[in-house]
């Protein structure tokens, strides 16, 4: 189970980033010349990705971040469990459905965390990606080895997307475990009034996880670009978190209706459409197209910036 992976890793020393970074250099040095055949090139790229992932997962604060992400659904489940049953309001919400079915803990937690916690996690990861390495000087070392900057950037982006997926999956799995333990897992009532068997509902939950991951992948592209602009990882992190939060605020102002379709966050709560029967795709389709547009624009911008960035260190 990927969710448990970071916890299962041996505790690394405080100097873990540098060690892992030198590991990355080793992987890069092992990469063959561009003239080599495709197979070793792919293998070399996978090595690069693997060391990038190891670097990401071995950081203490990332492990702590995953813990925080997993804590939210657990706290929510416990809060609902100990709340006065007579105080349960009958809103049109996932939270109100938790009492009857632990499955909804996962959904409610995702909806809650999509606004701040998950974007914050992406802001942290993307701050580290380029600006962080530039600050501690390992980026310079990476760049002297014969790995094209474009490939390095692509690897870092893929690592961010995998990290996003892991984060969302941790929330969903923690929600299922906490909800299942406290309320039990039962067939799921959709918004349309039909009932889904548990395996079908879990499949829908996976689709929700992928939909949220697509949003975070778009935010990661934006974060990667911001990360190439500075050598202060904290500055990049704060900037990405601010941009994300600002978009959520702008999206809540009805007077700015003309702006909403252009905001990355506008279609994200449409994940509730996954719980209709049959699934209602149009809004989510627009959401995915918006994600795609942000990915293309900001990856190209990151590439344009990173390619001629002066790396000191």
């Amino acid at each position: 189970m990927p969710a448990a992976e970071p916890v299962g890793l041996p505790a690394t020393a405080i100097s873990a980033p540098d060690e892992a970074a030198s590991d990355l250099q080793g992987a890069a040095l092992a990469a063959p010349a561009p003239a080599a055949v495709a197979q070793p090139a792919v293998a070399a790229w996978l090595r690069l990705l693997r060391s990038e992932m190891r670097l990401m997962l071995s950081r203490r604060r990332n492990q702590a971040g995953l813990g925080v992400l997993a804590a939210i659904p657990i706290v929510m489940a416990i809060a609902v469990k100990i709340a006065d049953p007579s105080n349960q309001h009958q809103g049109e919400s996932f939270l109100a459905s938790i009492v009857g079915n632990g499955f909804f803990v996962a959904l409610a937690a995702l909806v809650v965390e999509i606004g701040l916690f998950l974007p914050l996690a992406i802001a942290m990861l993307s701050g580290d990606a380029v600006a962080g390495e530039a600050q501690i000087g390992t980026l310079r070392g990476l760049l002297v080895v014969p790995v094209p900057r474009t490939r390095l950037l692509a690897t870092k982006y893929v690592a961010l997307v995998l990290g996003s997926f892991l984060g969302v999956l941790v929330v969903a799995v923690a929600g299922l475990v906490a909800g299942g333990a406290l309320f039990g897992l039962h067939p799921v009532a959709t918004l349309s009034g039909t009932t889904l068997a548990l395996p079908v509902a879990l499949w829908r939950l996976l689709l929700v996880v992928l939909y949220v991951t697509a949003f975070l992948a778009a935010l990661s592209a934006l974060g990667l670009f911001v990360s190439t602009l500075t050598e202060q990882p904290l500055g990049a992190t704060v900037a990405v978190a601010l941009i994300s939060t600002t978009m959520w605020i702008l999206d809540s102002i009805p007077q700015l209706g003309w702006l909403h379709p252009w905001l990355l966050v506008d279609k994200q709560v449409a994940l509730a459409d996954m719980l209709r029967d049959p699934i209602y795709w149009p809004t989510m389709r627009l959401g995915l197209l918006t994600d795609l547009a942000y990915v293309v624009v900001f990856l190209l911008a990151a590439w344009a910036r990173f390619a001629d960035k002066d790396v000191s260190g």
Partner: protein
Amino acid sequence: MARVTGLIKRHPALRWVAPTAAVAVAAAVAVATTAAARADDHPVLPAVTAEQLLTDTMSTTTQSLSGTAKVTANLGLPQIPGISGAVSGTGVVPGGAASLAAGSSSASPALTGLTTLLTGSHTLRVWADGPQRSRVAIITDGGESDVIRNGTDLWLWQSAGKQALHATLPATSAADKAKQLTPAEQQQLQKVLGQLPSTPQQAAQQLLAAAGTSTDVSVGATTRVAGHPAYQLVATPKDKGTLVSRIVVAIDSTTYVPLKTDVYSTQLSAPAVSVGFTDVSFTAPSADTFTFTPPAGTTVQQWTAPTGTPEKPSGTTGTKPDVAVTGTGWATVVVAHLPAGSPVAGLSEGTANGKGAGALGMLPAVSGSWGSGHALTGTLFSAIVTTDGRVAIGAVPVETLESALAHAGTGQ
């Protein structure tokens, strides 16, 4: 390729062309798709007359469809709490997404979902298979209201608070009805049936003849609805005293299924009411679309249709209903006395009994030789509720209602 790489190496700033172009492409695609949906597209179709079009529409054999429709209503109704309350705002975080997770704190009254259609813009999902089986789902943020009909079973479902209402409809086949009639009534029925149009074409002719005195019915420019080329039937009231400017019905050019209806007001350039498919296919939905079993934990209300002939209200004080009709056709105004004890009847005493009086109080006050009251100025219809318990309503401006009230007042 090598030349491009070389060029970029010499002028690194040129790399910025790529993201800039991506922004331009994304914006252009977004704007173009929106514009294409809005553009006046007039596909070339064989010319038809209004009568042909009506005939074909009435004789359409297509009875199965599934699709998505958009309903927009701008009736000029005031924002009454409880009517618009069920539509929660779009997701906002932390507020918005949290509101989706937590729902609105106020308990929603049963099945308010349906009344949300009266204001603003909503998305419906529609499935139909013959006249006996249909399902309409009203999509709201994080919620849904469904109306499902399967034969004699009618279900209303609302996801907010998990509420359902089940009704068993009387079997409505004409043969069943006829069996219950006395011989004299059956003779009467035969006579009426003889006058009824026996073909869609006759029906179309009768409809046009009936409408002809008050309405111009014509075939407008062709259009495209949900990708389907469509004819447009335009009904224009001859009477200029009405608030209704025209009614446009778009009819699919191959199946003759009505795809869109726009009702225009003289007060607005955009339709006051618009109901149309944004996506539609004419294939039969699967049978389980129409089966409904309330999920566990649902509050189910049973509603039984009254059987037998409806009894005449016995306890009413008036001998004849106090309803006066003035004007004709589209400019018809109905003036009626509200029954005593209705929530708005005690308005003159200033007793705000019930929600209706409270809402009425928010409407602007009007007065004239006919008395005084509160007026609702809508885009398609107006209404005045007077302090002496009369109500005037019609698809006309408030001024016409006032003169009708004055007229009805002198007539008594």
